[in-house]
């Protein structure tokens, strides 16, 4: 081996070692920086919730209280949730938001004011606002014919043929089959409530099922009861135990006549299928409600993520699962949750919640029936205010959207509610409002106004106590809700639906993350002291002078 060759070799070896050390150094520094620094700033932009002493809630005229005039609107740009050609999503380019908070008898309340354009003709807007329809796919099928119920041995399969729907067989769907084949999110199976009952004629017992639907959500047998020719249900009946029901007489002997069961969904439209759509069925009269939402980050994601390109985003093809972490959503829609008593489905404080999918024996009560536990400090008595609307209070994580205080088969997502109510009790409606979690601790007020140029705007105000601890008497509801404090900063995002031109479900416009800074009562200025940057001015001036010298 020549000397020159050895020399070359040694040179490459040296370079290799130096390179390795260099990579280690840069790598170590980089990982250290990533872990320890991430950024000097945050990716979300900031808005301030200003402290206003003795502020009043004016839900009948949102945004009209005098203090709002002194708070600047922040323009929040929005982007489409489903950004693809032909998508119905993304018609709102921006909305305006402002926030304030106040004390009422020592209890802090946050007020969020949203203002944005409503697209559509006056007649379309009026339809969307007061008489919206249920969502359908572009082909006209019902968007979500089946609903969520906890995976359990109460699910039954109801067979039918397209030619003759007057008879059926009813069989249990094994839990293992539900888990392996049809349950999503974990622990939930899609179903539809049906009623099973027995009649006696000429000494013969006959079992019937009513309320069953086909895979598209259309009533079977034209909505008339269907005779059960074969019965094979294995289920746990309270006070009876696990039993196999194969004859109508057992239904009577076990005392479960007229009981409600979940009909298992047929496999044509599950949450994962929603990811394939970019549009919904709509025309000038078949429209969806106006909707808006405020979304609060509840954690589960390192704060670093908010500083480095982390955006709030629903995972397409799920029942609303969130990309990472958990959030609470204050979801408002114009019908039935606005404060307009002329709405077809007005669900304000004086109206009935809808019955159990129209079945007899379903629940029916007013919001005022819900118990306001003394442990929940709410001197304004939200939920009982004049001119008040509601929100659908939602908890969202990596698996799904969940309705807080939701009731299976009444609300359209999986429910988080009193954990001591059993699946059988849920099915049979064996509970009272006082046992349930409060479904709406957020009060709203909204107005539609048309500007001189003919453009319609929606102004929407939300109000809630900073803390909801004690709201469900210690059952855990507050764990799924944002808890605010003066001086704190929280991650928040916004959504806006143009229901009057066909936006609904996952088709909407959303913002990226924003920070909300709750201005402390003692703070006269904004959150960022301008004096902080004065310290680096001498260094800047020195460098500037150096640069000038070089330049000249």
């Amino acid at each position: 081996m020549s000397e020159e060759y050895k020399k070359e070799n040694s040179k490459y070896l040296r370079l290799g070692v130096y390179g390795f050390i260099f990579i280690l150094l840069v790598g170590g520094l980089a990982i250290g920086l990533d872990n320890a620094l991430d950024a000097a700033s945050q990716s979300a932009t900031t808005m301030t919730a200003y402290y206003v002493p003795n502020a009043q809630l004016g839900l009948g005229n949102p945004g009209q209280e005098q203090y709002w005039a002194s708070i600047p609107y922040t323009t929040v740009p929005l982007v489409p949730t489903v950004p693809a050609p032909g998508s119905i999503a993304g018609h709102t380019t921006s909305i305006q938001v402002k926030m304030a908070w106040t004390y009422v008898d020592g209890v802090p309340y946050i007020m969020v004011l949203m203002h944005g354009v409503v697209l559509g003709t006056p007649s379309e807007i009026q339809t969307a606002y007061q008489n919206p329809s249920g969502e359908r796919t572009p082909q006209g099928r019902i968007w979500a014919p089946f609903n969520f119920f906890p995976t359990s041995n109460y699910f039954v399969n109801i067979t039918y043929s397209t030619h003759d729907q007057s008879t059926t067989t009813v069989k249990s769907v094994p839990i293992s089959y539900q888990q392996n084949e049809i349950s999503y999110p974990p622990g939930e199976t899609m179903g539809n409530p049906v009623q099973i009952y027995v009649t006696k004629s000429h000494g013969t017992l006959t079992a019937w099922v009513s309320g069953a639907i086909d895979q598209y959500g259309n009533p079977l047998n034209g909505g008339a009861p269907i005779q059960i020719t074969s019965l094979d249900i294995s289920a746990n009946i309270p006070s009876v135990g696990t039993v196999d029901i194969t004859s109508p007489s057992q239904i009577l002997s076990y005392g479960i006549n007229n009981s409600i069961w979940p009909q298992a969904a047929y496999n044509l439209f599950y949450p994962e299928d929603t990811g394939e759509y970019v549009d919904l069925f709509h025309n000038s009269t078949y429209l969806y409600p106006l909707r808006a939402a405020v979304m609060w980050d509840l954690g589960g994601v390192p704060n670093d993520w908010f500083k480095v390109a982390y955006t709030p985003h629903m995972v397409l093809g799920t029942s609303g699962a969130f990309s990472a972490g958990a959030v609470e959503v204050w979801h408002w829609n114009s019908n039935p949750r606005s404060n307009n008593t002329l709405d077809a489905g007005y669900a304000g404080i004086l109206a009935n919640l809808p019955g159990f999918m129209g079945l007899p024996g379903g629940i029916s009560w007013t919001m005022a029936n819900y118990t306001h536990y003394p442990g929940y400090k709410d001197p304004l008595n939200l939920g009982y205010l004049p001119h008040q609307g509601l929100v659908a209070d939602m908890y969202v994580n990596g698996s799904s959207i969940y309705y807080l205080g939701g009731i299976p088969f009444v609300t359209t997502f999986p429910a988080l509610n009193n954990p001591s109510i059993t699946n059988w009790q849920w099915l049979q409606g064996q509970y009272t409002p006082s046992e349930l979690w409060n479904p709406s601790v957020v009060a709203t007020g909204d107005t539609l106004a048309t500007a001189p140029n003919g453009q319609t705007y929606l102004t929407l105000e939300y109000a809630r106590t900073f803390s909801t601890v004690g709201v469900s008497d210690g059952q855990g509801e507050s764990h799924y809700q944002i808890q605010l404090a003066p001086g704190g900063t929280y991650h928040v995002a916004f959504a806006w639906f143009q229901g009057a031109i066909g936006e609904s479900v996952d088709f909407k416009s959303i913002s990226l993350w924003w920070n909300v800074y709750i201005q402390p009562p003692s703070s006269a200025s904004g959150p960022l002291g301008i004096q902080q940057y004065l310290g680096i001015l001498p260094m800047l001036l020195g460098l500037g002078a150096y640069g000038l010298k070089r330049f000249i």
Partner: protein
Amino acid sequence: MVCLTAFVEAFFNREFLAAVLPLGSAGVNIAEVSPAIRAFYVIGGYSFGVLTLLAPAALLASGILKPSTRLLATASLYASALGAVVAVAMDVQHVQEGINSIFQSSSAGESLILLGLVTCSVIFAALVVLQHRDLMGLALAVMLLTELLGILFLVGNIVTANFGGEGWSTLGGFSAAAEPYAGTLGGLLFAAAGGYRILGKKGGIRWGYVAALLVGVAIEYAVMANVFPGSSIVLGTIIIYDFGFLGVTDTLVPLVVFAGIASFITALFLLAMRGGQNTTFAGLTGLLLIITGFVYASETVTTYILLPSLAAAMASIWLANPRGGNAPNMEKSVRLKG
């Protein structure tokens, strides 16, 4: 190196992996697969760390060590260098005051100084490239304008949040809405200007360029036409949620993607064709603007804010090298290296 790191960071960042991949459509529970994709988070985080180191270092080097005789180019370089110093000072302060606090440790004043310096460097660089009276100069100026719109969005929000006056936020909103239009126009102009140069070059490179463009466009068409179910949504989602591009509507998505693909391929070929310093710097500037500036224009993160400034610095240096030849300082550096 900066380009490469920024590219890796963009595609391995947590948002891309956690929110953009169509895991839900595949019936996968995000919470369950999070641990499995954690290795990718580390790659993304590592790249971000390297970027945090490289961006200010490169700016300081270009601003202080680079001699130039042109007023605007020099002003742009020094504004960039000062921006790097402010960014480093903000990062140090951030570490001092609590690295993981939910709220930023730096003040509104600091942010505005940084943004002001970056704005100056970008404006100067835009004026510089406009003096270069050809299509490439115009393309880079429009691309730099896209940066300015993103910066204006940040400035508007910071001013409104801290000093009141909702007009600033409204202006920021308009800027955000205009961003994709400027970005698309700039990208298409860059592809046209660069493509003209590449196609004028003899040899196989121009056929390679045409083939790459055709493949890129064919893939985009297939994706947008939903040949793979749900693919159009995924691609659009990447543009908006991974790249933080505001103001995009459904109809704009194919155009933005086309401009992105065409300009990215063009920049790579400009670098590969070895057409002299002028072409190389144009390619590098374009690549930096495409990968970094376009991507992070709406993020208030020092590392990301510095990237447009870095691209502006590149543009300024590019002008210091007159068209078609090597500037004296470059010859000097080549000689020294040799």
